[in-house]
C-alpha cells in the first residue's frame, strides 16, 4: 500500500542517471513519508550515494522527477533545496578543516539566514550561541573552540551530523554516518539519530546492519542502480532476493 501523496516528504519518480555507458541509477522510484526513517541498502556501487547526489542536486538526473513535499525540485539548484528543508551529511568527512567546531556549525546556521549576504557585519552572536547549543546536543560543546583539524575522527562524524541538525531539516540524508567508527562511538551516534525529532524525515545509507536495521522502519534495497526490494523492515528482511543480493545467509 503506497501512502497518500499529501504526506510524502520526499518522492522520486523514475529517476535515471548514467555516467558514460554506466547506468548508476535506473528508474528509481521511492516514497518517503513525513517523519519516516528509511534505510538505503545495497552492495558497493549499487548507486546509493549517486541517488543522494541526485536528491540534493549535486548532480542532475538524466530523466525522472524528484519531489519535496509535493514540489518538483528536479531542476532546482542544490542551495535552494537546502532552503526548502533538505540537509545531508557526507560519507567522506566534508568539514571546514581550518575553522573551529563552532564556526563549522555556525556556517550551517548562517546558510539559512538573510544576514549571510551582509558584507559589513560579522555573524550575529546568537548564531554562535545556537551553534554551541547544537554542539552540546552531540556532546562536543567542550571542543567548540578547537579547529576541526585537531579533533578525532569520531568527533568529526558527530560534527557532520551537528551541522545538518542545526538547520532543523525536514528531510535529512545521512550518508554512512557510522563509517569508520568504533562500536562505542557507533552506539553514541545511534542514540543521537534515535533522538532526532519526528518532524525530520530521515533517509540513511548504512552498511552496519545491526545498528541500521534498528533505526529503520522502511528499507529500500538497491542493486546495480535499480530498486530490488522496497518495504517495511520486516518485509525486506524476509525477502528472498534481499537475502541473495545483500543480507546473505
Amino acid at each position: 500500500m503506497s501512502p497518500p501523496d499529501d504526506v510524502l516528504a520526499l518522492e522520486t519518480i523514475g529517476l535515471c542517471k548514467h555516467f558514460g555507458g554506466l547506468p548508476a541509477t535506473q528508474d528509481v522510484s521511492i516514497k518517503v513519508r513525513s517523519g519516516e526513517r528509511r534505510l538505503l541498502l545495497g552492495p558497493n556501487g549499487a548507486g546509493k550515494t549517486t541517488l543522494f547526489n541526485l536528491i540534493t542536486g549535486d548532480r542532475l538526473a538524466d530523466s525522472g522527477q524528484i519531489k519535496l513535499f509535493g514540489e518538483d525540485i528536479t531542476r532546482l539548484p542544490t542551495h535552494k533545496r537546502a532552503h526548502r528543508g533538505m540537509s545531508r551529511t557526507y560519507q567522506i568527512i566534508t568539514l571546514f578543516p581550518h575553522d573551529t567546531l563552532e564556526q563549522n556549525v555556525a556556517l550551517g546556521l548562517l546558510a539559512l539566514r538573510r544576514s549571510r549576504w551582509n558584507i559589513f557585519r560579522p555573524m550575529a552572536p546568537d548564531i554562535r550561541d545556537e551553534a554551541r547549543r547544537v554542539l552540546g546536543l552531540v556532546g562536543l560543546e567542550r571542543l567548540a573552540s578547537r579547529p576541526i583539524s585537531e579533533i578525532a575522527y569520531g568527533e568529526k562524524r558527530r560534527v557532520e551530523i551537528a551541522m545538518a541538525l542545526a538547520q532543523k531539516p525536514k528531510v535529512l540524508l545521512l550518508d554512512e554516518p557510522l563509517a569508520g567508527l568504533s562500536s562505542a562511538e557507533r552506539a553514541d551516534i545511534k542514540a543521537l539519530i534515535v533522538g532526532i525529532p519526528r518532524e525530520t524525515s530521515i533517509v540513511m545509507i548504512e552498511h552496519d546492519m545491526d545498528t541500521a536495521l534498528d533505526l529503520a522502519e522502511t528499507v529500500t534495497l538497491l542493486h546495480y542502480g535499480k530498486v530490488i526490494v522496497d518495504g517495511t523492515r520486516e518485509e525486506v528482511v524476509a525477502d528472498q532476493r534481499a537475502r541473495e543480493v545483500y543480507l546473505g545467509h
Partner: protein
Amino acid sequence: MKRIVLLAITVALVFAVLPLFLGDFYINLGSQIMIAAVFALSFNLLVGYAGLTSLGHAAFLGLAAYLSAWLTTRAGLGHGSAALLSILGTVVVAGLFGLIALRASGLGFLMITLALSQVLWGLAYRWVAVTNGDNGMTRLTRPQPFGIAIDSAISFYWFALVVTLASFLLIAIFVRSSFGNSVNGTRDQSRRMAALGYDVWMIRWITFVYAGFWAGVAGLLYVYYNKYIHPTSLSITTSAEGILGVIAGGSGTLVGPIIGAALVTFLKNYVSSYLDRWNMLLGFVFLIIVLVMPDGIVPGVRKLWARLPGGRK
C-alpha cells in the same frame, strides 16, 4: 574588529609622520608601495579568501586608470565625476568578466581571466585612436580632493595613505563579515556550502566584482601618481607582481598582501637603482620565502613568534 581598526589607525598615524623626516625619493617609494598594497589587498580577496587564482586582475587596475585618463583628457570631465565613472565602468566590466570566468574554477578560471585581461591589454596597445597605443597617455593631472592640491610628493603620499587606510579597513570588514565567512567556506568546501544552502556561484561573483572595485581604486591611485598610463599597467606582468606580493606576504591574511607588496615594490624601485638584474634578486628572495616560510611572511613570522619562549600559540 575594534582592535584591528585601532591598530590600523595607529600604524597609519606613524606612517603619516614618517615622510616629514624623509626625502622625496623615499616618500615616492612609500606612495608606490601603498598603490601596490591596495592592489594586492584586492587581489588577496580572490586568491586568498575565495581561493580563485586569477592572472588577469591587473585588467581592472589598468581599466580604471585608462578610463580616468580618457575621461579627464579626451572627454574633458572633472576629476570627481571621472573617478566615479571610472570605478563604475570597472565594476561593470568586472561583473561581465566574472560572468565569463566563473563558469570555471581552478586552472580554467586562471586561463580565462588571463585571456580576458590580454584582450584589454591588446585593445590598449592597438586602439591607438583612443589609447595612444604604445606611447601611452601623457600629460595627465592629479585631482584636488576637497580643493587640496596633491601635486607634491608628500601631499600625494598623505592622500594615498588615507585611501589605503580606507581600503584596508573596508576589506578587513568584508573579510570578517557574515558574507566573508561564506567566501572562505566556498574556498574550502564548495560542495558542502551548496548543500548547506549557499549560492556558491553568486558568492564568488560578488567577491570577484568587489575585488575588481578595489583594483579600480588602486588603478586611480596609480594613474594619479604616475600622471601617465601605458598598456603595461594591464599586462600579465602587473598581475604577476600583484600575486607575488600576495603570496610572499601571506595569502588569506589581512596584512600579508601589504607586506608582500612593500617587498616587491622595494625590490623593483630601490634595488633596481643599484642592480641591473634586480629581477634575479626578486627571484632569490621568493625562493627563500617559499623555502623558509611556504605560507608567506605573515604566517611564517607568526609561527616563529609562537615558538619563542613565552610566545602564545
